[in-house]
């Protein structure tokens, strides 16, 4: 079940052991085992309701906001069991999240990006200026908004807002970036721009990309996992998977668009 080529020289960023997620008694995800390596884009594909979003949610312990959600198994982030982190806020700062629909906070563009550093105790305007510019540049948004940093983030177009969300996630200085179907509300041109951004980001951080678009996974992911009905059917090198060497016929069927 685990991908064939585990290269030992690449450090493990995230390790998931026997992870199961339940909503009440209803299982959403069962017995997931996988590892995500440092500086890779790890794709997760699968039809709706296969547990992809629930998976992302537990990685930064957001399950605690959903009373019915229960998690079993172990998640090691940088070698440390996340359930044993004393300060979940510190954990969440290390993990940036981008949602399917862009959430521009009802603040100015500047404040959208500077909020997280400010919460972390950075007070000096000059320091914040540097962070804001850097993050907006990395999210390929700086040139479009540099003259109106004080206007509302929520007035930007959908594609710009999604890049603003990415800039905001980057402002946390995360080690891991979780993207949940980021291109759902974004036009194709912007999607391509964001994809280029992700390829660049990969050099510095680790990315988990949940996507409905099989071709997007193909373009971006180094390795891809296929989730189906709460189970992880297969994990493999993306190129191998798409060249027809799948271990499971269901994966092959999904990739060819025969269901899902």
């Amino acid at each position, binding site marked *: 079940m685990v991908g064939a080529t585990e290269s030992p020289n690449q450090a493990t960023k995230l390790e998931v052991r026997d992870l199961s997620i339940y909503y009440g008694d209803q299982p959403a995800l069962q017995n997931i085992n996988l590892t995500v390596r440092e500086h890779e884009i790890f794709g997760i594909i699968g039809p709706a309701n296969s547990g992809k979003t629930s998976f992302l949610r537990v990685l*930064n312990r*957001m399950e605690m*906001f959903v*009373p019915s959600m229960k998690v079993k198994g172990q998640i090691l982030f940088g070698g440390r069991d996340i359930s044993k982190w004393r300060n979940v*806020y*510190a*954990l*969440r*700062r290390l*993990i*940036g*999240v981008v*949602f399917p*629909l862009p*959430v*521009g*906070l*009802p*603040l100015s563009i500047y404040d959208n990006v500077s*909020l*997280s550093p400010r*919460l*972390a105790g950075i007070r000096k305007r000059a320091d914040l200026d540097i962070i804001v510019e850097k993050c907006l540049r990395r999210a390929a948004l700086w040139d479009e908004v540099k003259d109106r940093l004080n206007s*509302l983030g*929520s007035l930007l177009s959908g594609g710009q807002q999604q890049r603003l*969300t990415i800039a*905001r*996630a980057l402002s*946390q200085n995360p080690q891991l970036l979780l993207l949940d179907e980021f291109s759902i509300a974004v036009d194709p041109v912007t999607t391509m721009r964001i994809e280029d951004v992700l390829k660049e980001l990969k050099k510095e951080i680790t990315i988990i990309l949940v996507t409905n678009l099989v071709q997007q996974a193909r373009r971006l992911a180094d390795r891809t996992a296929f989730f189906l009905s709460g189970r992880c059917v297969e994990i493999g090198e993306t190129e191998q998977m798409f060249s027809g060497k799948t271990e499971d016929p269901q994966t092959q069927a999904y990739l060819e668009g025969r269901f899902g």
Partner: protein
Amino acid sequence: MFTATELNIRNQKIERRVKLLFLLMTILLVIPVILILGVLVYEGGPLISVDFLLTDPKDGMTAGGIFPALVGTIWLVIVALLVSVPIGVAAALYLSEYARDNWLTRVINLAIINLAGVPSIVHALFGVGAFVLFFGFGTSILAASLTLAVMTLPVVIVSTREALQAVPQAFREACWNMGATRWQTIRHVVLPNSVSGILTGVILEVSRTAGETAPIMFTGAAFFLPFLPQTVLDQTMAMSLHLFVVSTQVPGVPEQLPFSVALVLIAIVLTMNSISIAFRIYLRGKKKW
């Protein structure tokens, strides 16, 4: 070619009638408001002057102005607000942002709804027992305002909670994902975006507080006092009680006087409401999503 069937025509007729019915009901609703205001302005208007507002009542309250009552009402409202707003907003923040949906929360919610349903005269008696006698504040502004505060707390809590819950959950999730604590999320995102709703609720509460009579009758409002209150432990006159007194308790009051007092009281309330509405419009213009 499309031709309307029997059913289409019938539906259209019903649609027109239903709309007419609702329109009539709406007009019906407006009539009493206009009548009340019209009568008050017609009967009470001529007596109102700056003098009326700024002089003491004279001749056994059959003449003169309403100054002590006006000042007293302002005292009562402000002290009541100082108590009920911090408590109410804090409670609403807890219920909306922190509390989990368990039996305790449900019991608290039920208690709030019931508190809102308690008749004001019962609040008055509670106020006498608790604040006047037990805490020993005597009949005073403090006792009366605390009684008013207890009575209006549910309104503050409910309106504040509604304002808080109007802030989309996605904003909170985004903040939490960033590593913000609940308080940081409240301070930076939830409160700034719900403050208009909260203030609207508070101002509406002011107008209600200003008009209440029963809760202050036994706890701090005086029949007649020729001087202004100096501290919160003094008694005071109040507009609402003064209206009650000049309408029913004192012989020989000129016919227009109660109308004038009522007009001033209503003017205070309407002014408050207008401020609230204007404020709401202003802040809605700045709405950020």
